[in-house]
């Protein structure tokens, strides 16, 4: 019987993506430590740190204040999401020239499935050359027999690395590889595994699967056991296949913690309008409203409510969200607020049309026409004029949440790249 050839999966990881783009845009930033942040407020988090900041310990995901304490000479640049998204779209198009199977894993990472007969080193080098030529950007590429190993390989050599882990090399590499290095194993699972005496990926692979199932449940136990053996049968899902959207949401970290009902109402209305607009743009309506609040001590409250009518209208979402907010015991000053609509159905809005006030429908249609022409918030309720900052979905795409919720920040960009 002929042996099935080993899969050739590639993960492309753009190096310090946002920071590299900013350094490319502005020659003054090249060779300098750069921190790219959501805003210039010290409450924001670092979304990208250039390689020059790494020796100081600054990294993405860190609060800006902390990153600046570690690297006081760093230059802070406010993120420019449209710039990164346009670049990501360009990279996606470029990758599709090499394989029809390209999966956007996050805004700066993508998987490619190559034909088993292709030389992955040659393809990887060609991709790197094209990226350098077109965007003057570098990437690290990992190649493996599946997504798990390809992701691991990409992380082994940064920046501008190229690593291929063959299937027969897995046992040797995994023998000494800390279990936390495997994609999908976070700090909590790592701790639980360590309590079982599992410190390396190799130990995980040789651990009795029955015991893993007993500790983590049948699904996770089996998955962890497979991961420890370098097995990952998950396919590379082409970005050309429209994603299944389970919820649509937005969240916002306030410039300062607030207890002001007026300010909270305005932010809630703003988020509701953004959610409603996205639902209508994609032809969805939903029945479940989810409200998330984070207080100044980082405690997060999440409440949801299923309502009898389909939700797609910003004002209607806002009314329900405010009722949900009022039903909560006062949690203290609010730091972050988020709204999502779930239990979605495509075209469900049509069933509501007869139940709606005709005047209200006409108003909504007129509003959408204006927003289509002039952009988001081209028209808005007067109550939002009090919000000093500009709120736009194009300005803050990383606050999007489009379930299936994935583990990456900037996850919503995935959807954004596909649909624009």
């Amino acid at each position, binding site marked *: 019987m002929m042996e099935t050839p080993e899969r050739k999966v590639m993960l492309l990881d753009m190096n310090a993506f946002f920071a590299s*783009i900013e350094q*490319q*845009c*502005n*020659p*003054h*930033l090249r060779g*300098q430590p750069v921190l790219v942040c959501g805003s210039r407020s010290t409450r924001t988090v670092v979304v990208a740190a250039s390689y020059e900041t790494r020796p100081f310990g600054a990294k993405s995901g860190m609060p800006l204040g902390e990153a600046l304490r570690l690297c006081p000479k760093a*230059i802070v*640049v406010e993120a420019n999401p*449209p*710039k990164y*998204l*346009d*670049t990501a779209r360009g990279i996606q198009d470029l990758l599709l020239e090499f394989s029809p199977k390209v999966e956007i894993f996050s805004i700066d990472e993508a998987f490619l499935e190559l034909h088993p007969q292709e030389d992955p080193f040659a393809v990887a080098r060609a991709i790197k050359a094209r990226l350098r030529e077109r965007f003057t950007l570098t990437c690290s590429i990992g190649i493996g027999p599946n997504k798990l190993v390809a992701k691991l390989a990409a992380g082994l050599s940064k920046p501008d690395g190229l690593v291929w882990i063959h299937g027969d090399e897995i046992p040797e590499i995994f023998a000494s590889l800390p279990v936390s290095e495997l994609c999908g194993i976070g700090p909590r699972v790592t701790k639980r595994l360590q309590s079982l005496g599992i410190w390396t990926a190799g130990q995980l692979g040789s651990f009795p699967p029955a015991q893993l199932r007993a500790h983590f449940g049948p699904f996770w136990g089996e998955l962890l056991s497979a991961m420890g053996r370098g097995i990952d049968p998950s396919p590379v899902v082409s970005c050309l296949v429209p994603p299944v959207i389970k919820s649509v949401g937005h969240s916002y970290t306030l410039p300062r913690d607030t207890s002001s009902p007026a300010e909270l109402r305005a932010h809630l209305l703003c988020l509701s309008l953004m959610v409603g607009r996205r639902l209508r743009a994609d032809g969805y309506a939903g029945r479940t409203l989810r409200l998330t609040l984070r207080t100044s001590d980082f405690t997060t409250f999440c409440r949801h409510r299923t309502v009898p009518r389909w939700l797609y209208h910003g004002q209607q979402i806002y009314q329900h969200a405010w009722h949900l907010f009022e039903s909560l015991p006062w949690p203290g000053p609010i730091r972050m607020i988020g709204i999502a609509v779930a239990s979605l159905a495509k075209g469900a809005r049509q069933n509501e049309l007869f139940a709606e006030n005709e005047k209200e429908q006409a108003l909504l249609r007129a509003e959408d026409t204006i*927003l*289509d*022409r*002039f*952009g988001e918030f*081209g028209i808005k309720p007067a109550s939002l004029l009090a919000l000093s900052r500009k709120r736009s979905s*194009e300005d803050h795409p990383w606050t999007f949440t489009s379930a299936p919720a994935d583990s990456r920040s900037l996850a919503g960009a995935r959807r954004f790249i596909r649909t*624009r």
Partner: protein
Amino acid sequence: MGYVDVQEPVLALVEFSPQGEIRPLAFVRAGRRHRVKQTTYRWRTGKGRETLRYFAVTTESGDAFQLSYREDSATWWVEQVWTAE
């Protein structure tokens, strides 16, 4: 080193190639003419139906600017100014 957001319409000298490429060559801001030395990055985005094209450029004076071309109004703007100081 720092930057300022300005959003000023400017008079611009631009090359529109037959292939559809757009290349800013020079612009006048506050009475001063800036010759573009290099376009270091370009990207585009949409606002409603309007397409906005952005160009990160460096000038012969050593400064860096972010320019935009608003297709609907066919106008050029300086969006951001970076200075070396």
